[in-house]
């Protein structure tokens, strides 16, 4: 399986993603934001970080990068595109997934482990993961997902919510919401579910010495589903 990770100026989880993808069997290529063409890939990843310093709305500058047209075309033709953290912010800015990401409710950067409930398994990202709840890691300042009521209805009708913040039992309640996001949303798909944007970083949880191993579950499953 071939993957590509885009490096924007200010990306800082690009190496971590490269390490994770390779560990679980992907042949990964790093792609510079000013390239025009994507290499032939089965999966394209927009990594975390602070693209262009996030001085403007997070992800908005990166969404206009040269390479992004090619990423958008790839997604529109059914290619799998995953945006993690800043990558999720870039995805909403391109319009590939609906909604926006606001500043965290308590106005503070937050770095910790959270539990998320897999809300939809009818897609290549989560299909066949036995667990319903994953323990993942978040590290962001703008992860407060928001959308209009109409958008929310559409998202729910199409089962586009990928994961929600919850407790270790899978209970989705306000008190387990770290950033104020609407309906505890931690990640969403596009309508066709080939594009996934999510705040948690699975690439930081890929061996027992790190914060946990549920990231390994995610990647192992991912490569099997792409096959």
């Amino acid at each position: 399986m071939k993957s590509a990770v885009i490096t924007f100026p200010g990306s800082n989880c690009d190496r971590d993603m490269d390490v994770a993808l390779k560990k679980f069997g992907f042949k990964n290529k790093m792609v510079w934001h000013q390239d025009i063409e994507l290499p032939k890939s089965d999966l394209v990843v927009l990594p975390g970080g602070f693209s262009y310093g996030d001085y403007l709305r997070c992800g908005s500058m990166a969404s206009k990068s040269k390479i992004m047209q090619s990423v958008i075309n790839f997604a529109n033709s059914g290619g799998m595109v995953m945006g993690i953290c800043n990558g999720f912010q870039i995805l909403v800015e391109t319009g590939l997934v609906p909604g926006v990401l606001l500043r965290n409710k308590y106005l503070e950067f937050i770095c910790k482990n959270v539990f998320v409930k897999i809300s939809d398994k009818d897609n290549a990202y989560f299909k066949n993961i036995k667990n319903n709840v994953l323990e993942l890691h978040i590290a962001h300042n703008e992860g407060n997902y928001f959308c209009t009521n109409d958008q929310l209805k559409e998202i729910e009708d199409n089962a586009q919510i990928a994961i929600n913040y919850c407790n270790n039992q899978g209970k989705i309640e306000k008190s387990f919401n770290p950033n104020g996001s609407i309906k505890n949303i931690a990640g969403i798909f596009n309508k066709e579910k080939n594009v996934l944007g999510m705040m948690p970083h699975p690439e930081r949880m890929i061996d027992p010495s790190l914060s946990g191993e549920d990231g390994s579950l995610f990647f192992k499953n991912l490569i099997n589903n792409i096959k």
Partner: protein
Amino acid sequence: MTVNEKIAIDHGLKKDEYKKICELLKRNPNITELGIFSAMWNEHCSYKSSRLHLKKLPTKGKQVIQGPGENAGIIDIGDNDAIVFKIESHNHPSFIEPYQGAATGVGGIMRDVFTMGARPIANLNSIHFGSSQHKKTKNLLRGVVHGIGGYGNCMGVPTIAGQTSFDSSYNGNILVNAMTLGLVKKDKIFYSKAAGLNKPVIYVGSKTGRDGIHGASMASASFDDKIEEKKPTVQVGDPFTEKLLLEACLELMAGDSIIAIQDMGAAGLTSSSIEMASKGNLGIEINLNKVPCRETKMTPYEIMLSESQERMLIILESGKEVQAKKIFDKWNLDFAVIGKTTKSKKIELFFDNEKVADIPVNTLVENSPMYDRKWKKAKLPKKNKINKDEINNLKIIEVLKKILANPNICSKEWIWQQYDHTVMGDTIQKPGGDSGVVRVHGTNKAVAASVDSSAVYCWAHPLTGGKQVVCESFRNLISVGAKPIAITNCLNFGSPENEENMGEFVECVQGIGEASSYLKFPVVSGNVSFYNQTKDQGIKPTPSIGGVGLINDYTKMITMDFKEVDNVVLVIGKTEGHIDQSLFARVILDEKNGPPPEINLFNEKNNGETLLKLIDSNLIKSAHDISLGGIITAISKMCIKGNKGINLKKPKYLISEIEYFFAEDQGRYIVEICKKDQKKVLDILNKNAVYYDELGTINENVLFLNEKTKVTIDELKEFNTKWLKEYMSN
């Protein structure tokens, strides 16, 4: 403008210093030259009050590749890997403008590390605020934490450990010390020593603006009522540009075109160019019209003294300019050839075709003033006569709850959750433990780092306090299973012109030297911050020690959380019941006098090394050093972290339970072992003449001494975690 003595004094120079400048130049300096002298000769850059004493610190060791004198210290961790590290203060700017002050402190120290070719792999910090009741404290704390996070998070370097304290002596002068560790291949280290004639001098990074002019001079003066007016001297950080600069520099460093490289930190272009020339025994000629400027009509004086951030000065091999420029173009950074090396041994500056400065380099460096300041020796205070009946009537659990909720002990989760501590995917011990630990990427090795200070002990007796901080750093590394290798120190003191403050400095340094020499834990880098005072009130002497150690096999790393019910808990080291200067004495008895606990270097070394042996033999399940708050505070933290309880028994001693549990005797650890290993462990401790107590066994969820003295771990946890969160949300 004609320069005279008054203008020199306004630049922070003393009368006789100005006289010396005129003698060295054999004429009066012009304004640009005066600015350069004032920047190079201030305390911050010249170490004029501290140099004499710093020379006495042990700086060599088997694993030391580079000691003090470069951008950062370097130690060998085997397999051609080396760790570059340093700690630096950014106290004054952080008090004036907490967000930017702290942020640029973090940015500055990271540049010091990647200037040497190392990729930063971990950040730490030691931050000290005034009393929690003081009206400025909350905003300063919030601003500093946001600033540290804002910069480090954006750079993608994990912040893995730190220390926060509150003490009214910092009411008017907070401390922000930032430390960075970087990883470099031993054969790819870069230094700041210029070499070769007519080599191009290159400016890269951000453009030069008017920010931070005279920042170093500001950091070398005491605060007065008008500090708010000094806001323009604080630099503004841009972590995004620094991230680009990091990647661009490392890309250029992968090749062989760099002769020397130096970041522009304090005193900007002035100190960077002069240091490179001085180390290479060369001259440097700069055309200031070529310096990329952010603002129009900047004068030579402003360009030379600006402390705009995210800039580097590079001396390149001739002919490599085009190739190098390509890299900086790719990262969208300025790149300008601004001068060349010369044989003149002078710093020669040109602007609008005129020579605007012409100074022999040695006058700025070797001839900079050095003072043997007067200082007063501190006496060891007399022991307090503590009323035993009074303290024995106290209820242990009530006291413990107060101590766990004390600002200096309570959980600092509110702080470190705002720092990205897991980026780079190698953090195997997060903040909140004895040390932060990161793996050396792609190897079985890991590096542990901790930052410590004990201002109260140093204030009560500087010599003992100085020794204690080094020992505590040593213990924090050992507690995670790391072999301590070397330290970096950030020496925060009041005015060197005050004999008592100077005495505190001299004796703390002596204490640091004695301990680090005995423990073979040399000082490889550091920085001195004097004038931490408002009007004539100095802070408590606060040397911060950043210790670095190595774990050869990271799977053997130890954490402090209790692991398993029925395991046995031991105290390593002897408890004498030293209550003076303990947190217990200050918080519960309101007693501030008395000597700090004594340091026995033999015991420190022996206890620590024996514990390392036990860890290496896989006999230790968890470990934690005993510091502030004594045995029972340490135990409580291990219980809270592991979500386990303990059945305690107080060993038979002459001292009371309160003294046993809250004393702050040094050289002690708490360890958890399996019952089946008990005999083996005790044999090793006995054979090495290490004193130990059997303290109890682990249970499900209660800290239990007897029916009257017990508490659930959930309750302790609540006391430990709620104070800071509530304080910051009100």
